[in-house]
Every structure is written in structure tokens, then in C-alpha cells.
């Protein structure tokens, strides 16, 4: 799913400069158990209070982007293993998503091209956009950040057990 920065209703939680880009689920209303959240935090130290339905004991990782902007990925460690990487200017990266895992791509500075390795689908991503890809099949993508300055975060979310991670926003 590609959610553009200007989407109505896409930013579920905007308090004190905190923006939830994507979460599973993005609402506690349905009663689904929380698994992960990806949030943009303002410059500073510490982490603001957890977003809706985030459980106690959540694991958090922070990636720092330009101008002190921080990207936080919080996960339920009993179900999700998270890895975070930052890619910069101009160099293409092959992204492989294993069956049952998820990738979350967040441009922090500059644009980035995300494309299907095997087909014509391609989209330019800009800061404020978020791209989440998931499924029960193996998948190959190519990420090409624009020339410097550009920074793109790629978060890999993998299941801790045997069940595939599936995302319902």
C-alpha cells in the first residue's frame, strides 16, 4: 500500500508533532491485537508516549534522519522482529521480501523510486509518503534513492513464529 502524504485521514495520530505513518492495526476500535507502529517524531531526546493500543513491553528502534527528524519503529517483540536500515543518495538497492514478512519504506529526505523487479510497476516516493508491502509470496523490489541529498528508511518486519505477518491498516 502506498499512502501519500496528502491523504485524507492517513495520519492517525498527530499530537505534539508526532505522525503515525502506518500501524498494524491503525485503530484499536476493531479489537485487533497491536503488532507494530511506524512514527515520525520531532527532533529531540526520548520517545513520546506510545500511540494507540501499543502494548507494554514494546521494542523500539530509532533512525535519525536529516534535521533531527526521527523515525521510530515499535514492535510487539513476541510476534515481530524488526530491522531498520537507512539508504542514501543515488545508489539502487535490491530489496527482497521473504514470504510472510513485511517491508515499510519511508523517504526522510529527497525522493526515491520504488519499482517491481519483475514488472512495470514503479512509483516515486516523497517525504511524508509511506509504502508498505506484505504478503505470503516471495517478492523482489528495487529501491533507487534520488541523488544526494536523499535518505530512505527501509524497515523489515519478520514474524517471530511460523504465521505470516499480514497487515490490515
Amino acid at each position, binding site marked *: *500500500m*502506498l499512502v*501519500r502524504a*496528502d*491523504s*485524507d*485521514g*492517513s495520519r492517525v495520530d498527530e499530537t505534539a508533532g508526532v505522525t503515525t505513518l502506518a500501524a498494524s492495526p491503525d485503530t484499536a476500535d*476493531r479489537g485487533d491485537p497491536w503488532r507494530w507502529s511506524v512514527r515520525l517524531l520531532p527532533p529531540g531526546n526520548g520517545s513520546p508516549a506510545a500511540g494507540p493500543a501499543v502494548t507494554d513491553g514494546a521494542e523500539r528502534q530509532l533512525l535519525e534522519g536529516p534535521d533531527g527528524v526521527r523515525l521510530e519503529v515499535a514492535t510487539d517483540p513476541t510476534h515481530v522482529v524488526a530491522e531498520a536500515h537507512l539508504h542514501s543518495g543515488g545508489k539502487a538497492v535490491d530489496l527482497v521480501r521473504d514470504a510472510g514478512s513485511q517491508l515499510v519504506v519511508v523517504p526522510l529526505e529527497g525522493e526515491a523510486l520504488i519499482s517491481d523487479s519483475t514488472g512495470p510497476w514503479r*512509483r516515486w516516493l516523497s517525504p511524508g509518503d509511506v509504502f508498505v508491502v506484505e504478503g505470503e509470496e516471495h517478492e523482489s523490489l528495487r529501491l533507487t534513492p534520488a541523488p544526494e541529498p536523499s535518505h530512505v528508511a527501509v524497515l523489515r518486519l519478520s514474524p517471530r513464529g511460523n504465521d505470516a505477518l499480514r497487515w490490515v491498516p
Partner: protein
Amino acid sequence: MYVLNTWYVAAWSHEVTREPTARTICEIPIVLYRTEAGLAVALEDRCAHRAYPLSAGRVVGDSIECGYHGFTFGCDGVCTRVPAQSTIPQRAVVRSFPVVEKDGWIWVWTGDRDKANPADVPDTHWMNDPEWAPVTHSFRFDCRHDLIHDNLLDLTHESFLHQTTVGDDYIYEHGITVEVEGNVVRVDRLMPGVEAPPLYATTMGTEGLYDRFHCTEFFVPSYHVLHSGITGQGRPREEGYLIKVLNGITPIDAHTSWYYYAFCRNFAIDDEQATAELTEGLHVVLTEDADALALQEKGMQGRPADQHDVLIAQDAGVAKARRILAQMLKKEQLERGNPDGATQPAKRVAAGAPSAG
């Protein structure tokens, strides 16, 4: 419950004549008629005198005359005649609604008049384009409008509800790509190397394997375009047999909706047999949808309040569209100073002449 600051399809052009026609949109009673010059007019269907429906009256010139005591209202909603006296009470005004007539549909703006922009009426040009042949239907669905939106955003139901027409087992085996931009949600599915569904195979005259695709584009809150078709394997979609299904979804009340439907094709344009087969086949499809959603509506009404849908990954577009709709509703409610969400009619304000189509 309803987004009001938007354009809703109120009727087909041919349904609006010099005879008053009643419609209910978002629980608002509306009367439609045409002026002598042929312009469509939409007024509140309730006489300011003693609440008699104006749709039970008659059109006189460019005005509508109440069938009970003869109060006459111009197309701006202002009373121009009270048969029993010469003085016209200042409060004798009924609400008038902005109207746009385009490509065979009458659109009505149900919200704040000063926010109505005719340029925001969606693109429906395929209904009026010589390179496309439309097949049209309109249905009254016994369900809340939300269920129709969900139905269009998740087309895996075709494999189960529409097995003799547009359904095939392979649909749900293929994943979706969802894109959200502004108030538009797009759910796209590509099904490479498959046979055309039964209804299309007949009208397209195809055999063998093709790349099939469908993309629901939902302009929240009231209009979908379903871009569909088949093309040669590995070929661009634009080269193929293309279908544009236009869906105007208009809430009547909490549990019923109007469904305005136009299936436009760029193949077999002049083939009357194809048109007849599609008219019949698509009527079957819509009837199957109407029956299913009516059952679903009953299920939802009977479900305990603390139970919620168990959504799956294929519902991603559904989930996002619901969130956008909820945000739009919340925004309107806050603007109206009504956080609890009750539908509130706009104040009765005299307005200018109706918009031309």
C-alpha cells in the same frame, strides 16, 4: 452519519422532467423538476407552509406550486405567491440545492452552499463519448451506503457471488496494490495469463489466455470508477478491451441507498447483441450484489455493538477508505459544532438560479 459537503447523484437526466420527482438523499427530502428552459432544479421537498411535499404539486413556469394550498416557490426556493393573501411571509422559503447536470446524471450538493464547486463533479465522460458504449442501470439497495463502497473496493467477492458472469476462481488468488492519495483510494489487481470471465468472453469474442485487470478508484465519499478489462499477455492495459464502470452511490437513509451504474466499453460499440447481453448480464450482477448486501445489512443490524469486522489483508483498501470517510464525517461534525454527529439540515437561505449542466 453522512458526508454532506459533497456531490451526490440524484437522478438520471431523463428522470427529471416538467413533472416533480421526489428523492431522498441523506434523509433530506428533495424535489426535482425542470424550468421552461430545461434547467434542472432541486428544492427541499417540504412546503414552508405546513410541510406538504412539493413533489405532490405541479410545476408552473419555472416555479413549483404546492398541491395543498398553492404556495408557489421559484427555483431559488423563495415563495412568490400565496393564493389566500397578497403578503408573502418572510419565512416562506424552502432550501434550494446546487445542481450540476453532466453526461446524463443530475448531481446535487447537499451541504453548505458556499462550498459547492461544480468543477468538483467527477469525470463521467465515458457515458457521453462516441468511442464508448454505455449500459446503464439504477438500483435501490436495502443496505447502508458503506457496504456498497466496501463491495466495490474488494472485488474478491466476484469469485463467489458472480460465478456465472464476472467471477472466476483465480481472482482471490492474486494480490492487490493499494494507493491512497488525497481523498482517493485505488485498489488494483492484475491477473496475468487467465481466461476472460464468462460475460466478457461472450461479448469480447475472446478465447485463450489474457492478462486481466481491475482497479477500483474510489473518490470518497460518493463515486467509484472501476477500470477493468483484458489485454494481451505482457501488453499495456491501454491496448486491450477496456471497461469503465461508473458507480454513483447515494445514501437515502441509514439502511438504504441508490446505486447509479454505467458500464462503458470501448469494444463492440455498435453491436446491439453485445449491448443486450451485457444489459442482462450486468442486471444479474447487480441483483446478486443487492441481495447479498441486503443480507449483510441485516447481519450488521443484528450484530452486538461490541463486535467488529475481522478484516484481512485483502481489506486494506476497505480499511483506508473507511478511515477517510470517518475523518470527513468528523471534520464536518466539528465544523457544524456537532461532535455527536446528528445530521443537521442547513439553514433555509434564499439562493440564486440553478446551475446549468
